[in-house]
């Protein structure tokens, strides 16, 4: 930006930029990584690159839903268009609000089948959503062709979106750029006095990352 531009009034100087500056900033916006799941960022050593499908797998009570909601909270707070495709219809809006999600910025879709969920995710990416969480919930047994996941990954790449697929076990196969699994998880109970449920403790492991790399991360998820 011009700070001492000739002919530009003092107060306006900070608001004026050259064409080159403008082009550079637009290019920066395109390359800017998505700010969402900090836990996954810490695990993979950097922000999530746009245009990828990331899988987060873990059994029941492993903390995967909490990580997904935290990611949505962060993305909605910075103004990224975010969508939750909630196959199991598990979102409690009050809990989501308490988790920090800006509900007005979140699109919540409640499909009934895996096929519908995939259509929703595909359409969301096509409509310009930068962060799409596809939560398969507790659903078991539903299957779709592997090509569907590849198509979704390609759509994410074309739309420069991040798709976070939350499932019980790895589902997307080669379409996923990264696979994070919950290696171990346990419920934490506070036994000082009458027993109280205190939260979950999980260990995440980066099992696959396009471009190599791996790592582990322990998380405490207090209630």
């Amino acid at each position, binding site marked *: 930006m011009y700070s001492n531009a000739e002919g530009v009034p003092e107060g306006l100087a900070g608001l004026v930029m050259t064409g080159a500056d403008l082009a550079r900033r637009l290019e920066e916006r395109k390359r800017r990584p998505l700010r969402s799941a900090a836990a996954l960022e810490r695990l993979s050593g950097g922000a999530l690159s746009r245009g990828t499908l990331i899988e987060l797998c873990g059994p029941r009570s492993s903390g995967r839903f909490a990580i997904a909601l935290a990611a949505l909270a962060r993305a909605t707070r910075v*103004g990224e268009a975010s969508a939750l495709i909630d196959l199991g219809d598990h979102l409690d809006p009050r809990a989501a609000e308490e*988790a920090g999600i800006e509900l007005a910025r979140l699109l919540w879709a409640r499909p009934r089948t895996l096929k519908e969920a995939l259509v929703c995710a595909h359409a969301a990416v096509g409509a*310009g959503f930068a962060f799409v969480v596809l939560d398969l919930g*507790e659903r078991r047994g539903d299957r779709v062709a592997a090509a569907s996941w590849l198509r979704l990954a390609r759509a994410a790449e074309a739309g420069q979106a991040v798709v976070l697929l939350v499932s019980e076990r790895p589902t997307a196969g080669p379409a996923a750029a990264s696979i994070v699994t919950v290696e171990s998880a346990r419920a934490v109970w506070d036994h000082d006095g009458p027993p109280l*449920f205190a939260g979950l403790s999980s260990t995440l492991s980066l099992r696959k990352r396009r471009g190599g790399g791996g790592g582990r991360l322990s998380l405490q998820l207090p209630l």
Partner: protein
Amino acid sequence: MSGTRVACLIVPSFPLAARLRGEPETRPLALLDGPRNAPVVVALNEEARRAGLRTGLSLPQARSLLPGLEAKPRDLEAERGAREALLEAAAASSPVVEEGGLGLLYLDWTGMGDERSLMRSLTGACLRAGLPAQVGVAGGRLAARLAAPNGTVVLPGEDAWFLAAQPGARLGLSEEAATALSRWGLYTVGAFAALPAGEVEARLGREGLELHRAARGLDDRPLIGVRGVRVPREGLELDWVVADLEALLEAASRPLARLAARLAARGEACRALTADLSLDPVGKDQRTVSLAAPSAELKTWLALLRLEWSERPPSAGVTGLSFAAEPVKARRTQLGLFGPAAQSPDALAGFLVRLSALLGPRRLGSPRAVDSRRPELFDLSPYAPPPPPEETTSDRALSRGSAASEAVGAAEPDERLACVPRALRPPVELEVLVEPEELRPLRLSGGDIAGAVQSAAGPWRMEEGWWNDVPEARDYWDVGLSDGGAYRVFRDRRSGRWYADGIYD
């Protein structure tokens, strides 16, 4: 009117043109009107004319001349849509449009500039609406109407000269007046115009006098504009009874396509679509489908109608369709250059409507917490996110490629990770073995939840709705099961039954 310029827009054989909008008919075709037991031919397509048919024949007469003649009744629904489309095309090129009859409009083109170019754009707009039109321009209505078939522009002040050479039969006189003129030996408009006005009035009355003035190139009556079309409507009457959903959608696609094209030309989208069905043998079926976001996409409308008609099919076969689109100006938003990219309003609207059609009602939107502690309850509001916040310094730091990882930590150091329950909607009923005194759960099973309770915390009492007809009284427990899962379960104090309404995950 000195200096006034009037354009005349004519769609020849308007009822036929309306019927054939967008679907050309290459076989000889006659359009019928009149009493049900003795209809007469009121319009013919080019193929039928070439075969020697003319209007006014009865159907048996026409078929005796041309046995393979296709005959269809007038379609009033299609004519109504065509009239509206014609008015819209005309309104786009003139502020004042007067309706002169079926498929006949007069437009005020005073001071409008290049008339030839306007004529081309007007006929083009009519053709896009599926209506082949003719346009003529002159100083008055009559000259403009007679100029239209040849696409003539009569120069200012030359109306009388132009009219003088026109055949008298084109004046559009009543049968009685036309007979009188031919009896007097008057065969041109000029000859009629040369008669003394008083004599014409004495013999042909007020109508004759007005026509006489027009024939002399005098037209000082101002154009009376018609009201514009606010809610566009398109429809058709079917030649057969349709009972099958696919066939109904197929039939609906033609008027809907015309409606979508008209809305697009107006720069508008539809926020609610009303479908009026005529049922066999009598009766109406009307329903309105609201769109999650304004849309002018045919595919989306069809998807919504498919959903609506498959859930609540019409009570009888359908003989006619008519659709009205409640218009709304297409959303325009200034997208920012910096900060998180906002979504294109059009793409977003199309997406919302398509998904609403796919998922059905109350399955898409922004979640909203309701005033209740029962986690299975929720509300949805239409998805209309506020614009993204302005770009901050930390955003800019984050965007610098090499420093990305450091910036991540710096920008959001305090991500709040908390254990959140997955709501089970509806709550899963459980069979529970309880410790008799405290009613502490010892073993649970129900749905895909089963195991011995290893840890349990509770009970927490929740009561609400005691002030209305649906009170809720629950004793909540957090339990850890032998399957490794942590659950939120409750005992309904009124029924004594146990349910799981959340899984800590």
